[in-house]
């Protein structure tokens, strides 16, 4: 057997890397979030304040961005679930020889550069993009539809980007539902729909929950797609953090927002995992 001393030696490099370049930087950001910032003058040394956090709750603009981010998280999660389930069902329960090609077609866009995918949606959704050009050429609309820099663009882009994660989670979950139970229900006279609603769907609930948590967290933390499809004006929490740091240089506000976003994400995981545990306890 290898000894604890060897275990320490094997773990030390990654512990140093993550400690020095992840935990320590995040920890040093904490005091910044309690500092006072004056536009033009910068940080006021020696002054500590809760202002950066209270403003997130009291300021109407910040509140709007937070509600928008959360609303987007729920909407994208629901859309991914709705679109992901039939596809996952076909992969898990469809013809065997379709499995690998279908999974590869799901993984391919997932592996593809985020910026490239968002750029593809810009080419489609822009005022002079493919969809608007096509609709105008066909004479269906006179002026371009506004498909970008608003909720529509963000919904389409983010759903496209996080759908593969949901599908892969659901494939695993549906694959874990024993076929015998489904056949048993069918033998006992259930219709196909009834088998699905009363057997497959409830038994795949853990996967639905795990996929939903993942997609929700990824959506509320997303920076690239909201920036590219939302533009500089339609902001979410991540793009607001980006602007606070890179444009207004208000690092205290930016770090307070960063911690709020992190607590939201970790809070969702903590809350949902305790719900799952309670369920498991009942079952």
């Amino acid at each position, binding site marked *: *057997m*290898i000894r604890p001393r060897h*275990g320490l030696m*094997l*773990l030390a*490099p*990654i*512990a140093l*890397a*993550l400690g020095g*370049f*992840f935990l*320590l*930087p*995040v920890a*040093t*950001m904490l005091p910044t979030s309690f500092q006072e910032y004056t536009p033009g003058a910068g940080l006021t040394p020696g002054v500590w304040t809760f202002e950066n956090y209270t403003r997130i709750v009291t300021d109407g603009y910040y509140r709007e961005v937070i509600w928008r981010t959360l609303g987007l998280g729920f909407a994208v999660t629901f859309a991914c679930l709705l*679109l992901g389930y*039939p*596809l996952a*069902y076909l992969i898990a329960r*469809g013809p065997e020889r379709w499995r*690998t090609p*279908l999974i*590869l077609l*799901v*993984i*391919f*866009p997932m*592996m*593809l*550069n985020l*910026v*490239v*995918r968002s*750029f*593809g949606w810009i*080419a*489609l959704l822009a005022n002079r*993009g493919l969809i608007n*050009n*096509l609709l105008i050429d066909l004479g269906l609309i006179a002026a371009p539809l506004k498909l970008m820099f608003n909720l529509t663009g963000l919904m389409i882009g983010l759903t*496209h980007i996080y*759908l*593969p994660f949901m599908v*892969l989670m659901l494939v695993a979950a549906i694959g874990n539902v024993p*076929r015998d139970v489904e*056949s048993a229900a069918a033998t006992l006279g259930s219709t196909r729909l009834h088998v699905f609603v009363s057997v497959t769907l409830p038994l795949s609930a853990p996967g639905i929950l795990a996929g939903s948590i993942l997609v929700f967290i990824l959506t509320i*933390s997303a*920076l690239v797609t909201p920036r*590219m499809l939302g533009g500089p004006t339609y902001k979410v929490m*991540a793009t607001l*953090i*980006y602007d606070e*740091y890179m444009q207004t240089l208000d690092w205290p506000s*930016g770090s307070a927002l*960063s911690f709020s*976003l*992190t607590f939201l*994400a970790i809070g969702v995981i903590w809350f949902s995992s305790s719900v799952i545990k309670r369920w498991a306890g009942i079952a």
Partner: protein
Amino acid sequence: MSAAGENSVGFGVTTAALAIIVFLQIPVVVVVLAAFSTTSYLTIPPQGLTLAWFGKVLSDPNYLSAIRMSFFLALGSTAISLGIGAAAAYALFRKTLPGSEAITSLLMAPLIFPAVVIGVALLQFYSMTGLRGSLPGLLMAHVVITAPYVVRSVLASLAGVNLATEEAARVLGASGIEAFRLITLPLIRPGLVAGALFAFITSLDNVPVTIFLISANQTTLPVLIFTSVEMGVDPSVAAISTLLIIVTGFVLLLAERRVGLHRFI
């Protein structure tokens, strides 16, 4: 009773599922079309075909230096992640230390942490320590976001390894290092390959951390595309994107053939 493998999925669900598969490929197809189009805005059918944008991109020194930078970071961070990640996964698997589960979730933390928060935290940290704009700083930032993938894949691979085979080799006279190299290493090779691949693609793909840390004269390919798009749609962006699509597709097919990639996701 239906036999296993027989199609038990209804026509409606199959149609819907295939439509969703098409939806997933749409932006990819559009980018490729745009790369060959003579017009800067896309129409269907395309107005004319040209290879000019590829030539423009591949002779642009900004793009070339961004490509070099991206590959340097991806290769460097993959190599470092593979070393430190595999070592950590092995130690965790052998449960040499108490609290292995807690350590594992700590090592996975960068995966669930909002990337933009890691980005701004490092920006501030590097500004304080003078690492801002430095290559080692950027490389370590990429190690932080890629190493967890290696740990995860190698742990997944180790889960299928029977420790008794390694012990048997020891009993038959192999040294600890020999037993690891001859028995365990070949068994976890798929996990190493999959982990390296995820690390490589994650690094090559990254914008939310990298964008805060690059200096004015050193940028990566996705960050360059990101900033170019903010200034307006340009077919040369489509051309460089198409090259990335081809590389990604090639790597994916190769990985699927070699290790059955989809088992590690």
